[in-house]
């Protein structure tokens, strides 16, 4: 599970305000947000030594070259691609739904001190709910379906976005809105031209944390429920003692997590391009 660790480790680390500065190449157009590939060196070294040390005969620790051929077999049998597609779609739908809902709810909660105070305990409670505990309820209500998967992913990924948006709203300077009113901007125009852009950095702080969470939960719900996807394949290979295949799938999922991280970072840097470097 080493490679999958990329996701949760990042999600667990608190996002400090300083984080913004690091991912803001405001002074140049450098795509400094892409993690340098040499950071993958330890993984490569690890896999290479595994390859050298591993005995062909051990069923539990097959060498990485076996993983590759197992993946190829899987791909030839026409199982891998649809599974990968199902996983990516679930992940994307879940993340997008979490972003939209999280932003809207965060706005609604943060906009009034009263609702904010009233909902605080509920939010803390809901956030602490482990996604694995949500799965049985979700399957009960929605069955073993793609919708169920998306709902579980959304419910896990929404929190960092909602809470970041909420605290973003609370930090907005009221002068910004009085200015907009004084310039005769309508209500909708104020949301579109002032509130939303002002909150984008907060929203993206949340999305950055939510993206790896969404991926991990996508795989988790697939492993737990066996509904389509790479996670379901991982669970199957473990059940069938197809360890080479299992390791291969885990490696692929990890690489996808890296890619997602890089993409979100790039998007964030793009959004923050013209912001003050503070």
């Amino acid at each position, binding site marked *: 599970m080493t490679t999958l660790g990329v996701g949760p480790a990042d999600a667990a680390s608190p996002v400090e305000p300083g984080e913004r500065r690091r991912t803001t190449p405001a002074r140049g157009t450098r795509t400094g947000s892409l993690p340098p590939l040499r950071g993958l060196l330890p993984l490569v070294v690890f896999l290479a030594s595994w390859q050298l040390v591993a005995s062909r005969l051990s069923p539990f620790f097959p060498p990485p070259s076996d993983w590759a051929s197992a993946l190829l077999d899987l791909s030839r049998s026409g199982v891998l691609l649809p599974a990968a597609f199902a996983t990516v779609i679930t992940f994307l739908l879940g993340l997008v739904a979490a972003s939209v809902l999280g932003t809207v709810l965060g706005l609604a909660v943060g906009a009034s001190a009263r609702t904010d105070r009233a909902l605080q305990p509920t939010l803390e409670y809901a956030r602490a709910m482990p996604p694995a505990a949500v799965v049985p309820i979700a399957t009960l209500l929605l069955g073993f379906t793609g919708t169920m998967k998306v709902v579980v992913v959304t419910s896990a990924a929404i929190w960092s976005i909602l809470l970041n948006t909420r605290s973003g709203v609370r930090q907005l*300077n009221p*002068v*910004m809105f*009085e*200015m*907009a*009113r*004084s*310039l*005769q*901007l309508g209500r909708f*125009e104020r949301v579109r*031209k*002032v509130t939303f*852009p*002002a909150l*984008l950095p907060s929203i993206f702080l949340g999305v950055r944390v939510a993206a790896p969470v969404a991926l991990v939960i996508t795989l988790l719900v697939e492993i737990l429920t066996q509904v389509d996807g790479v996670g379901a394949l991982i669970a199957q290979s473990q059940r069938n003692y197809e360890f080479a295949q299992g390791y291969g799938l885990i490696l692929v999922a990890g690489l996808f997590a890296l890619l997602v991280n890089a993409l979100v970072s790039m998007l964030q840097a793009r959004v923050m391009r*013209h*912001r*003050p470097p*503070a």
Partner: protein
Amino acid sequence: MTVERSADVSSAALGTQPRSVACQCRNASVDLGSRAGPRRILGDINFDLHEGEFVAILGRSGSGKTTLLRVLGGLVDPTPESVVTFHGRPVAGPPQDVVFVFQNYAASLLPWRTVHNNVALGLEGKVPVAVKRARISESLATVGLEARAADYPWQLSGGMQQRVQLARSLAMRPRGLLMDEPFGSLDAMTKASLQDQLQQVHQHTGATIAFVTHDIDEAVFLSDRILVLDGSPATIAHEIPVELPRPRDQLATKELPEFLRLRRQVYDAIVETGD
């Protein structure tokens, strides 16, 4: 800089004939909530602003200057019995043709918009694109910032940022400007140069201006009339006409005996109200 409404403006600015009333404030009171419940901040304020007049509002810190200006700008609701009108219409929300200029220029500019696009904010979708462009370059030229149009506000000095805010207001072609200590946090040199620019804007546009300040010299130098707020709840404790010749000059005007006399008078008014 092009001159707008010059015909009716010059007569108003010269102040020879009786001017029409731009803004009316009758029995205006304001209650604001504190922890101990609502507190009366302004009590029974009465005054008029005349078309094209420059009125300075002075008073000690916390006397209610900002609150009064916010009432005129429709950002704070006065008590129901208050009568506040701008250009003949009751103020409910920010009045058309009146723009508020904030002391906190940094918070009033949108950091993700260029200077040009900040100035565009109030015009977007309201005037044709060509008109919008022309007005933006014109108002940026007025404050001497046409060269910085493509920059972001946070790349500008404080004085420049305040000029951007002024340009954004001017681009709206306002008939009224409500300015809350706009030069309060600027150094003396920048302040003087912005005062000169504001004076020119006032003369060329004939806008009605209410200007809150802590600075007695600034109030006397710029205004046609000074209102001194005092009391709890605050009322207008003094009203001092300023009849210095225009255009005014940073050195020559400030050496006039009349300037020194007014300065003294305003100072005494503020000190006396404090006792």
